């Protein structure tokens, strides 16, 4: 379930092929050769490794979803829209006001991280922090205050996996990673890599965020300006009920999410993971009411953490109705269907032993009469 390649292969197959999701995996353990400019990995000098960690860790070179599920969760999914999960899909929110004030929705991610830090179960959390304006960078948070400061959704891509490398280099040994589906996929590849060992036993938890797409920062600035808003005045972005919403100076400016497609990062068109299907715990706003977050527990560890956090009064948890869960599933399926079309257009024929099959025709191989 692997391929091998080096930095030149990575450039050809991913970076200059429009597939790079800027997750930071390639440069997390290769600061000497890989840097980042204009939200893209750059190599001014090539190393001479015949096959490298950059290719091995990149979620866009190869990714075996069912293999990862078997290895990480012990079983393969039954729900193809939302991936493997345990127990029920619930809605939750933080109980602490300092968190809910700052949070995008329910503040569940911030509350869980703070809880685990207080307990000593983690010594750092890799989060995305706003820098100037709405640009983001990975940040290794080691206090509850730092985690709260980094709360809230950001709609541009952040190379969060770089933060994992930074955390390990700083000597952290119990690290939580908060990321989008692509970050989580990269982290799982790093954990399961048969070729490279970067000490991933130090990553204790992954919290994945629901994601339909990220936006190109410069294009987003332009779109926000077109809507009559200065980027520096934006207090919050949100996506709700088919609208992209900008909150600025007491105003709410809405635009249909369909109109945001031209401002999307190109690589997001080839992603079929909406609900962060490979995280220990997945969190998002879809399906929950305002001020609450939808939570999906996937691993045993994730389930135990949620249970303990509820028992200790860190979060409150409610059941989600079937209708609300269906709305999550609907959005996941919509993303998969739309992006699978893009994947089929871009992909070459798949080889199954000697048979060369166009990806969109694979079903025909197994359906008879």
């Amino acid at each position, binding site marked *: 379930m692997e391929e091998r390649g080096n930095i030149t292969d990575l450039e050809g197959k991913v970076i200059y092929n429009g597939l790079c999701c800027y997750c930071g995996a390639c440069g997390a*353990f*290769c600061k*000497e*050769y890989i840097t980042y400019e204009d939200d893209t990995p750059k190599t001014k000098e090539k190393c001479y490794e015949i096959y490298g*960690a*950059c290719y091995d860790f990149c979620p866009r070179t190869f990714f075996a979803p069912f293999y990862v599920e078997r290895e990480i969760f012990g079983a393969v999914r039954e729900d193809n829209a939302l991936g493997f999960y345990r127990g029920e899909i619930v809605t939750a929110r933080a109980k602490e006001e300092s968190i809910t004030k700052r949070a995008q929705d329910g503040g569940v991610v911030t509350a869980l991280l703070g809880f685990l830090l207080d307990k000593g179960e983690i010594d750092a959390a890799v989060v995305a922090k706003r820098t100037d304006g709405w640009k983001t960078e990975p940040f290794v948070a080691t206090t509850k205050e730092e985690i709260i400061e980094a709360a809230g959704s950001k709609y541009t891509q952040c190379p969060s996996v770089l933060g994992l490398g930074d955390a390990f280099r700083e000597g952290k040994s119990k690290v939580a990673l908060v990321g989008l589906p692509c970050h989580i996929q990269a982290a799982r590849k790093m954990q399961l*890599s048969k*070729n*490279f060992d*970067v000490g991933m036993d130090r990553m204790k938890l992954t919290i994945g965020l629901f994601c339909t797409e990220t936006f190109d920062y410069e294009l987003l600035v332009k779109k926000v300006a077109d809507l009559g808003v200065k980027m520096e005045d934006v207090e919050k972005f949100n996506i709700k009920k088919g609208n992209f919403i900008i909150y600025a100076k007491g105003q709410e400016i809405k635009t249909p999410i369909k109109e945001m497609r031209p401002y999307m990062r190109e690589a997001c068109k080839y992603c079929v993971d909406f609900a962060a299907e490979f995280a220990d715990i997945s969190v998002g706003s879809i399906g929950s009411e305002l001020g609450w977050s939808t939570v999906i527990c996937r691993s045993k560890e994730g389930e135990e953490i949620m249970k303990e956090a509820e028992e200790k009064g860190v979060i409150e948890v409610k059941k989600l109705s079937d209708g609300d869960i269906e709305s999550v599933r609907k959005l996941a399926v919509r993303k998969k269907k739309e992006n699978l079309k893009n994947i089929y257009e871009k992909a070459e024929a798949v080889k199954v032993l000697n048979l060369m099959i166009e990806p969109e025709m694979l079903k025909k191989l197994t359906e008879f009469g």
Partner: protein
Amino acid sequence: MHTENKIDIKKRILEMVAEKAEPLTLVEIAKKVGISWSAAKTNVLELSQENKINVKKYGKSWIVWGKEKKEEKKTCSIYRRMG
């Protein structure tokens, strides 16, 4: 013994070139290392072939200077799993 002497001579030439910040002539090398000019020339040319020093002939003189030390950058090979 002849081989040991040869290795020793080459080592002493490299040390000398590294110690001096400026280019040297074969005469200087031969005198300092305690060998003949001809032996100095042979060893210097061999070292040049091995890509360990630079040497150039200017008229009748041979000028020798050291190679710039290229700091080897770390690659992901340090993380490679064995076996």
